[in-house]
């Protein structure tokens, strides 16, 4: 189990104290005491000390291996097991995975309740009739139906205790009419869903070559829910984007380097072309050239900087080369990556904690600062000396690593150079670093800030790089304090450590800023466009900055030019003013009011534009989200968000992601799908109706807690529009049909009972009944559930609107369910009355034999098997040999069964003995009745469908007919057209 969701390397160190113990012998007399905190679930801290030989040494995350860690770059380690079993952090983190059931199944449960009610109703009605007839069996001491010997009978039929008999009959009837409740439905559905998941797993179109990962349906009970998604809540990083960082730009000493064009910029350029066609040509050229550039320099992963001023060691000719040198040195040293030298080629690759970090080290290498070895205390570089322009080997003594954390938002290392200079090298978020610059270090602050805002507008992640030289004295003082903090066992050790680190990370000198592109995954804009056309709303929930999020929104087509943006944030002067006063209560109040007002404004804005074709996009940041999700506001916020075409929540925490998901799920009652790749998305994935995990680079945590795992965002299109639609349709059809077939069969019992004075006698032989749901009707319905498709995968992708059938649940609406049940009722009536009226009284063969109980049973059962299977045949849309085999095979198997069963000795076959061969088969009535009943029972449904396709066709009918008439070659735009206000209407096709 990979708990923190990252497959990147974590650097672990042995304590200096014990680093000398290197073989088994040295542990012979090893005695040490470990004091540590109680078991807890926090993965990112460990507080403890080890006392060995009277010396104390702090234990931290650096010394701790989580359960199931995998060793890299070393063969073995010696270790002490601190916690086991349920005390491990893995187990402490384990929460019960939420149990999810699809809406269809929940509705199915309701139907079962209804059917159970019907069952009880008809059983009680039967019991009342039974009570009346049994009570009358002895009238005034006279035996009425004397042939039943009511004077000498069991309690079941005793006229003197007719009420008790009626109650016992009620229990019998519950069993007898039990076929109304399709118990085998649950089993069949489970089986079908497992098979459906196999199809999802086996889909080649959802296999991702690069990581060798096919799609994986981790739960099988949500397949049909995939076809009903109303809202998608998507993470950004690693989901919409690749999470492979490419270093594209940097700003050093106030000069911006890097000419490549990011995807976001390209999208913006495209928008410009769209808006101002007159400037289109030059921009198109620009796009082409940048494409060409990108194509040529694509060879290095993580590095996409193209600028002739600094490439190939040319930076040494730049005016600020000292600053550039320091800048690159920071990139090469301030990290926790580990070089991995390929022994054959001598080439170096890096294993880093985050892809950004890898990009930095690679960039440093490409520009002449090749980091090639790391030991416990030293870092080794091949450096390009700017003076003599030669490569030299230098080593740096690594004194401290002040690690990155989301609270600190910066990372620093303290190193000692070969000429004994102490350097603090830092990189961090702009908001943090700019506040820590010394006065003399702010030389080009304005330009750098300008560049940073340009970069983030272009959708890039920025970090600011700074450094500082330390005095020997200052360092020693600080190091002592830091050591004390580290070894303290106090619960607030982390805070103390942070505070200590804070003391040294001051008075920095600005070097520049880096810009790393988070690349959009392949096909994301197209996929989002398709999903939007399918009527699915897409929300982005991201932890990124608002500008980055908006840019990604544009890049992936979620926000379009011409869309009205409603931005809700707390970055306004009024709030700032309140914030400065420092009164937290005041601030909260003011913020809440501000958010409420902004939401109101947004709603009135929407109202005023109601009739115009303008779409709205809502953007809200995490702080505002806190208030918007609070009790009073959540409904108006939801109302506003739902009226917008797209919603982007930025700067949102994992918890907020889950809360937003819940808000949408509960507030609208519609089906939500959350998609994400990181550990921070787990809450969201578990909260949503369906969680889809991306098996990307950020580890398996999200995929592990997801319901479906795919490798790329764009596979979502196929997962929803093809598999989701199919599965929804299949399961909906299957359940409806199941109810149909069981009602059609179950009610024939009731009709027969009405003619058997409700005595509880079944119309059929026990074995016919037992095999009904097992052999004679089960396989076709499973085939329906597994294989049926209304339209092919290609057409489902081509006409995304078809997906709305699932979202609006047209195939499993109450009217449809009741319609199918009514169809079952009609079939049962036709089967019973046509059969009995045709053949009961008169001779049913030319040799004068008359019908009896056994023959009626076989005849009716034959009709039932034919009717339900033929009903299947006319209601499915997709006939492969499998369907043919199962449907006709089931019917054939019934005949085979009755022949074989009939040849068994009469003690086994009882009422079925030779009944088909001797009595039924030679009778023309038998065959005529079968034909009559089958056709008559199918006519109502067939007529209904014929009228429906003529006068009120469903969307899939239209597509099917277009296909059969060869007109589907038209573009979908001709068939469907995006109308006003997101309303989608299908315009007519010219013939």
């Amino acid at each position, binding site marked *: 189990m990979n708990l923190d969701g990252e497959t990147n390397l974590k650097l672990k160190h042995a304590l200096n104290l014990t680093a000398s113990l290197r073989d088994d012998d040295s542990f012979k007399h090893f005695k040490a005491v470990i004091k540590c905190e109680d078991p807890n679930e926090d993965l990112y801290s460990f507080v403890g000390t080890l006392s060995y030989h009277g010396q104390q040494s702090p234990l931290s995350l650096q010394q701790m291996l989580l359960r199931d860690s995998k060793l890299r770059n070393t063969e073995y380690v010696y270790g002490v097991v601190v916690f086991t079993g349920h005390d491990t952090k893995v187990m402490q983190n384990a929460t019960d995975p939420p149990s999810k059931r699809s809406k269809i199944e929940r509705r199915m449960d309701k139907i079962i309740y209804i059917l159970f009610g019907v069952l009880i109703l008809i059983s009680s009605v039967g019991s009342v009739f039974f009570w009346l007839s049994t009570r009358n069996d002895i009238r005034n001491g006279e035996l009425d139906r004397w042939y039943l*010997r009511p004077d000498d009978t069991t309690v079941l039929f005793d006229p003197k205790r007719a009420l008790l008999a009626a109650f016992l009959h009620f229990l019998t009837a519950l069993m007898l009419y039990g076929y109304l409740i399709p118990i085998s439905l649950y089993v069949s559905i489970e089986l079908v869903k497992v098979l459906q998941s196999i199809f999802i797993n086996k889909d080649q179109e959802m296999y991702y070559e690069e990581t060798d990962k096919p799609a994986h349906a981790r739960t099988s009970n949500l397949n049909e829910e995939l076809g009903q998604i109303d809202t998608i809540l998507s993470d950004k990083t690693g989901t919409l984007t690749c999470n492979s960082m490419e270093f594209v730009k940097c700003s050093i000493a106030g000069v911006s380097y890097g000419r490549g064009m990011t995807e976001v910029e390209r999208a913006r350029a495209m928008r410009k072309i769209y808006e101002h066609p007159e400037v289109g040509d030059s921009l198109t050229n620009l796009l082409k050239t940048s494409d060409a550039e990108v194509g040529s320099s694509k060879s290095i992963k993580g590095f996409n900087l193209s600028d002739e001023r600094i490439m190939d060691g040319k930076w040494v000719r730049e005016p600020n080369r000292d600053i550039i040198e320091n800048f690159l040195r920071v990139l090469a040293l301030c990290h926790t990556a580990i070089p991995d030298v390929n022994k054959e080629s001598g080439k170096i690759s890096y294993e880093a904690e985050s892809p950004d970090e890898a990009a930095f080290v690679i960039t440093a290498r490409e520009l002449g600062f090749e980091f090639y070895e790391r030991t416990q205390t030293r870092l080794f570089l091949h450096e390009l000396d700017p003076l003599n322009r030669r490569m030299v080997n230098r080593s740096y003594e690594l004194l401290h690593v002040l690690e990155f954390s989301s609270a600190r938002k910066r990372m620093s290392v303290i190193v000692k150079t070969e000429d004994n200079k102490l350097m603090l090298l830092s990189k961090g978020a702009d908001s943090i670093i700019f506040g820590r610059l010394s006065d003399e270090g702010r030389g080009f602050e304005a330009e750098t800030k300008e560049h940073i805002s340009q970069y983030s507008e272009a959708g890039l992640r920025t970090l600011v790089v700074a450094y500082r030289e330390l005095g020997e004295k200052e360092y020693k003082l600080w190091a002592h304090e830091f050591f004390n903090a580290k070894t303290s066992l106090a619960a607030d050790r982390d805070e103390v450590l942070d505070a200590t680190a804070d003391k040294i990370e001051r008075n920095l000198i600005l070097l520049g800023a880096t810009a790393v592109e988070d690349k959009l995954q392949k096909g994301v804009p197209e996929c989002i466009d398709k999903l939007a056309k399918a009527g699915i709303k897409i929300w982005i929930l991201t932890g990124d900055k608002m500008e980055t999020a908006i840019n990604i929104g544009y890049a992936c087509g979620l926000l379009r030019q011409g869309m009205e943006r409603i931005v809700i944030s707390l970055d306004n002067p009024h709030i700032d003013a309140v914030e400065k006063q420092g009164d937290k209560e005041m601030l909260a109040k003011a913020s809440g009011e501000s958010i409420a007002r902004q939401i109101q404004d947004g709603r009135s804005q929407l109202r005023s534009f109601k009739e115009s074709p303008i779409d709205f996009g809502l953007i809200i940041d995490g702080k505002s989200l806190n208030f918007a999700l609070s009790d009073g506001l959540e409904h108006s916020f939801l109302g506003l968000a739902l009226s917008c075409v797209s919603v982007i929540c930025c700067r949102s925490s994992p918890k907020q992601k889950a809360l937003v998901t819940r808000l949408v799920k509960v507030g609208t009652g519609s089906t939500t799908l959350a998609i994400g790749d990181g550990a921070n998305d787990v809450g969201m994935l578990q909260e949503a109706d369906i969680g889809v995990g991306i098996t990307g680079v950020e580890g398996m945590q999200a995929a592990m807690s997801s319901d479906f795992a795919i490798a790329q965002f764009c596979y979502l299109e196929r997962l929803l529009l093809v598999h989701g639609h199919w599965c929804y349709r299949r399961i909906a059809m299957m359940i409806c049909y199941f109810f149909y077939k069981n009602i059609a069969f179950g009610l024939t019992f009731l009709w027969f009972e009405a*003619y*058997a*004075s409700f005595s509880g006698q079944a119309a059929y032989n026990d074995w016919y009944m037992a095999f009904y749901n097992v052999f004679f009707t089960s396989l076709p319905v499973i085939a329906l559930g597994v294989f049926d498709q209304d339209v092919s995968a290609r057409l489902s992708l081509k006409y995304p609107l078809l997906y709305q059938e699932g979202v609006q649940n047209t195939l499993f609406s109450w009217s449809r369910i009741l319609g199918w049940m009514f169809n079952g009722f009609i079939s049962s009536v036709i089967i019973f009355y046509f059969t009995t009226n045709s053949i009961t*009284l008169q001779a049913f063969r030319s040799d004068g034999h008359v019908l009896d109980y056994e023959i009626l049973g076989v005849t009716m059962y034959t009709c039932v098997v034919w009717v339900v299977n033929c009903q299947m045949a006319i209601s499915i849309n997709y006939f492969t*040999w499998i369907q043919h085999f199962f449907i006709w095979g089931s019917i054939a198997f019934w005949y085979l069964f009755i022949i074989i069963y009939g040849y068994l000795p009469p003690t086994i076959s009882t009422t079925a003995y030779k009944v088909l061969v001797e009595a039924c088969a030679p009778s023309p009535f038998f065959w005529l009745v079968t034909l009559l009943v089958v056709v008559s029972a199918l006519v109502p449904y067939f007529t209904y469908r014929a009228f429906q396709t003529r006068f009120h066709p469903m969307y899939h009918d239209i597509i099917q007919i277009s296909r059969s008439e060869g007109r589907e070659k038209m573009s979908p735009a001709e068939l469907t057209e995006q109308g006003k206000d997101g309303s989608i209407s299908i315009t007519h*096709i010219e013939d």
Partner: protein
Amino acid sequence: MNSDAPSSSSGAAGSADPATPRRNSKRPKYSKFTQQELPACKPILTPRWVISSFMLVSIIFIPIGLASLFASKDVVEIVDRYDTECVPPGSRNDKVKYIQSSTNNNCTRRLMVKKDMDHPIYVYYQLDNFYQNHRRYVKSRSDPQLKDEKDENEISDCKPEDDINGKPIVPCGLIAWSMFNDTYSFSRTNQSLKINKKGISWKSDREHKFGKKVFPKNFQNSTFIGGAKLNSSIPLSEQEDLIVWMRTAALPTFRKLYGKIEVDLKKGDFIDVLLENNYNTYSFNGKKKLVLSTTSWLGGKNNFIGIAYLTVGGLCFLLAMAFTIIYLVKPRRLGDPSYLSWNMNPGGRLTS
């Protein structure tokens, strides 16, 4: 400086060159089955299909219906209800008492043949309101006992007609006990008509369900006598009336074969029936009828199936016509979706 050095940011993610063939690739294997691309026929309800299906049904059904009706019309059937007529007028107020007490229940009926009847003419008795399909009744028999003389003690299902003073009744159970015991003899102009009672039961019953060595024992010996008595010197396999009776009827109104008249009857003949009215249907207000019937290739007289075929066939013909007219009058192409528009208002509900 190697600018073309392949570098990987994370070795753990297992990124490899996609061009090189992988030994253990997880790529799903292609087959038409797994990719759900099996060749299939996709039936669609096009106008042509709808109309031709309806036409096909009517073309098949109408002739069958006519043939069945003609077959039924050819059958000559004489039905005579005698349950009231055969009770002397003085006893009709309390028929139950009459049937239970009277010893001489002879009764004569005269039937007129309205049409020529070719032999064989089947003689049935028809009972009404008699629940042979009652659960208690159906189960009250012992098949092993009927089949095999060694199993005569298998009487657990037969209560209360299972034994007398500890001795098993053969055949046991309510069905056998309540066997029909009216008898008929026929004569035409004082010349008796022979009734053939052989072969009125199913052959499989005679040969496999009723034993050749099983003889009635202790039958109808109790104080409460149900129906017919059996000749204890004839094995069950030859007691065809019993075999017919034991094959329980499906519905409360039923006919059972009594015998066959192996001569032709002419139109205008009068048949005198001498019948013994023994069987008590009066307690439960059941009717008794005597039926003489010929058969056609199809069976006995029944217009229902013919009418049903004609109705369904005619209905389908009308539907076919209706659809044809619809398509001719308003030749809208079915694939033309202009009629349908899905309006998605912001709430996302379908209004169509």
